[in-house]
């Protein structure tokens, strides 16, 4: 076996190769940032890491070769991160419930749906980020203006999925439930709602992601707390390393949320056939 055959990318060493790509990019970035001009605009991976350290850990580091100024162990990001996550969860919850209710209502009331149709299309087509100033005006600079912005993002994703989900309930399943004696409320509870929930779950990854985006963008446009606020502050002082550190933290937490959603989805949607799943007898 030659050397190449052993390290060739394959299913076995995929993780190593993925890690390798990251290391190469970081190394190239670090090397490029030895030029002061590039370091000013692009930041330095080591400094970014130092910033993340001082955000999360309470222990400092004395000045050394890598960090001539040392690192302060501030552990001061938790308040900001907590605010951003709180906004995300509130927006996700409110947006999902509103989307679910409106989707169910309009899908089951064809007349209302026909009347509102053009307005829903218009509201969905509108670039909703521009609503941020209006929400800031209405709800102030606290968390609620951010929640409102993120709700507008989440709402339409959930709404359209629920609408679709109710519309696509199999007519046979519906007729069967009616023949078994379901009244309108029972139909809603046992047929329409579960079907709509399945569609909501299929959009959950998107809507959690958008709730996060809405919260951060809202903070970035005007706030006194939150990770978006930290990024805004750093940008104001041309502290590009902190901006990148903020991006790294946001990305990590977006991935974390996505993983969480995946777990919840697998638990609640076990009735759905997954591709390639064999029958477990």
């Amino acid at each position, binding site marked *: 076996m030659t050397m190449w055959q052993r390290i060739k990318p394959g299913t076995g060493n995929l993780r190593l190769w993925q890690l390798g790509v990251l290391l190469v990019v970081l190394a190239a970035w670090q090397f490029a940032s030895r030029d002061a001009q590039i370091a000013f605009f692009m930041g330095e991976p080591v400094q970014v890491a130092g910033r993340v350290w001082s955000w999360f850990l309470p222990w400092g580091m004395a000045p050394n070769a890598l960090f001539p100024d040392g690192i302060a162990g501030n552990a001061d990001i938790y308040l900001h991160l907590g605010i951003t996550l709180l906004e995300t969860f509130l927006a996700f919850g409110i947006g999902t419930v509103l989307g679910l209710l409106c989707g169910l209502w309009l899908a089951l009331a064809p007349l209302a749906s026909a009347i509102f149709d053009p307005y829903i299309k218009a509201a969905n087509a509108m670039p909703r980020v521009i609503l941020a100033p209006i929400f800031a005006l209405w709800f102030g600079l606290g968390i609620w203006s951010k929640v409102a912005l993120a709700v507008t993002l989440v709402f339409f994703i959930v709404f359209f999925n629920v609408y679709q989900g109710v519309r696509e309930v*199999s007519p*046979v*399943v519906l*007729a*069967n*439930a*009616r*023949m*078994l*004696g*379901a*009244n309108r409320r*029972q139909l809603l509870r*046992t*047929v329409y709602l*579960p*079907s709509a929930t*399945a569609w909501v779950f299929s959009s959950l990854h998107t809507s959690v992601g958008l709730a996060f985006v809405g919260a951060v963008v809202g903070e970035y446009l005007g706030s006194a707390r939150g990770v978006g606020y930290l990024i805004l502050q750093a940008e104001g002082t041309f502290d590009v390393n902190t901006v990148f550190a903020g991006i790294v933290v946001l990305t990590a937490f977006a991935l974390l949320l996505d993983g969480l959603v995946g777990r919840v989805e697998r638990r609640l949607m*076990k*009735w*759905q*056939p997954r591709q390639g799943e064999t*029958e*477990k007898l």
Partner: protein
Amino acid sequence: MPAPGCALELLGITCTFASAGGGPSYTAVADTTLRVGAGEFVSVVGPTGCGKSTLLNVGAGLLAPSRGEVRVFGEPLRGLNRRAGYMFQAEALLPWRSALDNVMLGLQYRGVPDAQARAQAQDWLARVGLAGFGDRYPHQLSGGMRKRTALAQTLALDPDIILMDEPFSALDIQTRQLMEDEVLELWAAKRKAVLFITHDLDEAIAMSDRVVVLSAGPATRPIGEFAIDLPRPRNVADVRSTPRFVELHRQLWDVLREEVLKGYRQQLGKAA
């Protein structure tokens, strides 16, 4: 008729569907009268696309006829037929409920307490041979098992009239014969009125007291009616080789063949 009184009467039923594009309307069923006695097993056979399912939907109250009347145990039918259970041709189980929860569904709709409904559903699952499969979701069951679950779901409500729309047409022949025997056994125990739609002549003769032959569509109507005097209990596989079965089959086929050919010609004409 074996039992006194009629469980289900379709009297002078005509079903005309308006076409979506404003074109000519389509009459699926024309002036059809069909009676099912209490405790009687009646099959309806006819060429594909002749409006058999339309007729069944009318009997279930899912579809209002353009003309004619439906009577259930002598009473005119308004709205859904509450005394009927309907077993559909297509998949009708709720995919998000396990087999047991699906069988419980009708009982829950009726307000039976959960514990009691669960016990009854367990019992029915066992009767259709699915004891121990109650926690499976429909996608984890084979086609035959799903049909058994649907059968248990329909029968758990103990309906006086059972409507079946080609329930076994998607099954392989062995599974199918097993299920036919099981249905006959369950039917013999309770003696409910059954209206059974099929395109399979063998199945119709092997199971029924009476077979009604429908003409090819459009404007389908009954063109023949045959009393099946084969002794019961029957085994659907064995009964097929008896001389009387062969004779009945020939008589029925003589009537049906022309309609099947007519049906094919029409479908080919439509495609052209």
